[in-house]
C-alpha cells in the first residue's frame, strides 16, 4: 500500500509537469487542451467504476460476502465523484472550444445517463437500513441497469449529433494525436486507475 501511495504521488507530479510544460497547445483548441488530460482519465474511471460496481455486485450475490458489497458500494461512490469531475471538466472544455457548456453530444448524453444511474443507485443504497438486504437489492439494481448499456451505446450516437473529438484511435485505425500527447494521456489514465484502486482498497473496512 505504501508503495502504491508513492507510485501515485510520483506519477502525478510527473503528469502535472508534462501537462503544464511539455504538451504543446493543440491546433484549434489552444491552451484549453490541457483540460483533456484531466477529463479523459476521469471519464475512463467513471465507466470502469460503473462496471466494477456491477461486477462486485454479482460477486456479492454469488458469495454473500459483505466485503464484496463494500467494494461495490465504494466503486459507485468513487464513480459518482469521477463522473461529476468528468462532466464538469468536459463542460468547461466544451465552453472554451465550442461556446456552450452543454450541447447534447452523445458522450455528454452518456455521461448524464451514468450520473442518473449512479444517483439512483446511491439513493437506493441510502434508503435501505438492513445491511444484507441493501447489499442484495442494490446488487440486483446495479446488474439490471447494466443491461441497458448496450442499447444506449447503439441508440445514443444515432439520436444525438456529435462534436466530440473522436476517441484515441479514429475510424481509419490510425492514431490521430502527437506521440507526446498520447503518452501523457495514457500515463494519466494509468495514474487515475491506480488512484481508483488505492481509494477502493484503502477504506476502513479492510
Amino acid at each position, binding site marked *: 500500500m505504501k508503495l502504491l501511495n508513492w507510485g501515485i504521488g510520483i506519477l502525478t507530479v510527473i503528469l502535472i509537469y508534462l501537462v503544464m510544460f511539455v504538451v504543446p497547445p493543440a491546433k484549434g483548441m489552444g491552451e484549453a487542451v490541457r483540460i483533456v488530460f484531466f477529463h479523459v482519465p476521469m471519464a475512463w474511471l467513471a465507466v470502469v467504476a460503473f462496471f466494477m460496481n456491477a461486477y462486485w455486485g454479482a460477486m456479492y450475490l454469488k458469495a454473500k460476502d459483505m466485503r464484496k458489497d463494500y467494494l461495490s458500494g465504494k466503486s459507485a461512490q468513487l464513480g459518482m465523484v469521477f463522473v461529476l469531475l468528468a462532466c464538469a471538466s468536459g463542460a468547461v472544455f466544451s465552453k472554451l472550444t465550442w461556446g456552450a457548456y452543454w450541447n447534447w453530444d452523445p458522450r455528454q448524453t452518456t455521461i448524464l*445517463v451514468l450520473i*442518473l444511474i449512479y*444517483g*439512483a443507485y446511491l439513493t*437506493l443504497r441510502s434508503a435501505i437500513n438492513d445491511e444484507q438486504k441493501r447489499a442484495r437489492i442494490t446488487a*440486483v439494481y446495479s446488474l*439490471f441497469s447494466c*443491461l441497458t448499456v448496450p*442499447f444506449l451505446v447503439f441508440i445514443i450516437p444515432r439520436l444525438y449529433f456529435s462534436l466530440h473529438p473522436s476517441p484515441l484511435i479514429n475510424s481509419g485505425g490510425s492514431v490521430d494525436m502527437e506521440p507526446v500527447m498520447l503518452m501523457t494521456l495514457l500515463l494519466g489514465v494509468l495514474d487515475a486507475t491506480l488512484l481508483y484502486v488505492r481509494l477502493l482498497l484503502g477504506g476502513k473496512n479492510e
Partner: protein
Amino acid sequence: MKSSSSNKIMQIFQKEIKCALRNKSSFLTCLMFGVTVIACVSFALQGNVLEAKMQASIFWIALFFTFMSCGEGIFADEVKAGTILALRIYGDGQSVLWGKMLYNAVFLSVMAVVLAPLYIMFMDCDINNLFLFALVLIAGAIGVASSGTLVASLSVSANSGKGIFAILMLPVILPVLLLSVLLTSQLMGAGDFEMQYLGAVIFYDVISAVGASVLFDYVW
C-alpha cells in the same frame, strides 16, 4: 412441471385482474392521472400546435409519468395490504414475477391505448399509420412492464416512500423512452418510419424480461 408453472403464472395474473376489477379505484386513479397530465400539457400550451418531434416528446413524457404512477403499486400495494407475506410463503418467485409482469403489460398497454386518442385529439396530431402507432405504444408499455416489475420489487425494500420508483426507473427505461419518442415522431410526420428501431424496442422487452427473471430469484 412446465404446465404447473404456467398454471401458477396464470393464477397470479387472474388474481391481479380480479383485484383490479373489484377495486376500481387504482385503475381510475391511474387513468385520471394520465388524463390530468395530458390536460395539463394542453392548458399550458394554450392551443399552440407543436411540430411533430415536440408532440412525440411530450406525449411520451406524459405516458412515462402515467406509467410510473401506475407501475409502482405492483408490489407496494401488496406490502401495504400485508399480502406480500402470504405470497412469499405460498408462491415461488418466478410465478409471481411473470404473473405480475403479464398483468402489468396488459394494464399499461390498455392505459396507453386509452390515453393516446385523447392526446391526439387535444394536440391535433396526424398519425400516418395507426397500426404501427399501436405497436409502438404496446411495445413501449411492455418494456415498462418488464423492467418496471423488477424495479418495483426493489423499490419496496427502500424506506424512502414512493418517489424512488421513478428515480430507479428512468435510467433503466431510457432506451425505450428515446426509441419510442423517435418512432412516434416519425409516425407524426418527422421522417420515414424505421422498422429496426421498433425491433430494438421489442428486443429490449425480451432482454429486460429475461434479465428480470434471472435476477428476481435474488430479490424474492
